[in-house]
């Protein structure tokens, strides 16, 4: 059901030329020059150490790889990661939560 609502929301935002995060509330990430990443719309922290941070929402996951990673701010659905960020990868698993 959630997948259907998400798909409809995506189509509406595409049709109205909106930014997708307005209607879908998916995970979004903004990275500043590889030293700070602002993540929005997550629900769970799956793994954290100074080299890897894995977070998820529904069946979508996000893996941030770097060194000396610090979670400088955490809130209910957003966080700020600081450190040397090398890459950010999205993971998807159809129909099953991560």
């Amino acid at each position, binding site marked *: 059901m959630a997948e259907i609502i998400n798909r409809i929301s995506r189509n509406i935002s595409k049709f109205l030329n909106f930014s997708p995060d307005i209607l879908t509330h998916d995970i979004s990430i903004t990275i500043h020059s590889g030293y700070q990443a602002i993540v929005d719309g997550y629900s769970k*922290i799956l793994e*954290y150490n100074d080299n890897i941070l894995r977070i998820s929402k529904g069946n979508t996951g996000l893996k941030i790889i770097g060194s000396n990673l*610090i979670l400088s701010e955490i809130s*209910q659905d957003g*966080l700020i990661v600081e450190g040397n960020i090398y890459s950010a990868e999205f993971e998807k698993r159809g129909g099953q939560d991560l």
Partner: protein
Amino acid sequence: MIVLLRWMLGWSEFSIEGNVGDFLNAAKKVLWMVRKQNGIVFARCLTKNYKYICDIAKKKGCCLKKYDSKGLTYILKKYKFRLGLAVGASIFIFFMFISNFFVCEVKVSGNIQIDDEKIFQVCDKFGLHAGNIVFNIDEKQIEFELEKLFPQIAWVSVNRVASKYYIEISEAREKPDIIDKSGPCNVTAAFDGEIISVEPYGGFSLVEAGDFVTKNQLLVSGIQEIENSNEVIYSHADAKIIAKVERNNEIRRQKFIARSQKTGTRQNKKNLLLFCFKIPMDFQKIKENAVKSEESLEAVELFGIRLPIFVQNNIYDIYDEINVDGDFEQIRRMLANDQQKWELKELAGSKIVSRSYIFEESDSELILKAKLNVEQRIDEKHPIQMQ
């Protein structure tokens, strides 16, 4: 702002061991600065939330260890038995608060023609002076009085910023004389000289470059008679005529100079300094010819404790003016200064080609005779009286 708020409320830093992922998910509302150092995860939370975090850690099977606590609350805790410090801080805050209700300083800006002293006198009359209570001051009334007393003021505003008063003045500019260009007039020479250039703008020019002219000689005429006819044309003559002119000036100065000399008598005046207030301790008035020569500050002590109150002792020397024979060189310099001022005023916009000064001495005066060769405008308009 958030950092300041957290510092004011106080925060604790602790390490987390065990199932860190689950713990972070459960306590993410109240944590910040989560990091891993040497294999141990550290995090920070507000001190008031630490108990709540401990409960979560127990539920999730984690072990917490407090490392550090910082913030204003901890600093205050450190000094909680120092009563004097708290009393001193309270008194300081109280006086800071109270001092807001007293005038500390009055500043005047924007005045050129009107002296500061005259403005302060008016302000004094309406209670605007250092040390007075701000509730007694009616800014609108002072503005109105200043505008009424000084017609040179075009606009005035009295503003209060904390305990300082700023009087901003905008002076009126005098209306310039309207040049009448409609009436017929002649242009005559203001000085004797040799004409260098003639630029006629109206009328009929009677001279040209290289001509020698005398004072009051007609240079440009506003009247022209038409040949073979009795008809006369009147016009407004105007021209820019520059000529080489010899200008002379004579300045005199008395040989003796008024000099102030100490009489040997002294006057003492004591004030009490309390924060930014100066309270006079006696009612004697300082003489006009008195000059402050010494100033000393003495702290007031109560049972051997120095208070933040000082007694200021000012000593004034009384001077009398006497006439003494002036130094010849000094008077010469003063005369040269006067001459420079005259040149700036009288020969503004003119080119001085050469100058020579001669100093002469009479019984009581020293005289400077200046001779200058100047290139200046000599045109002077004179209206033609029509019958």
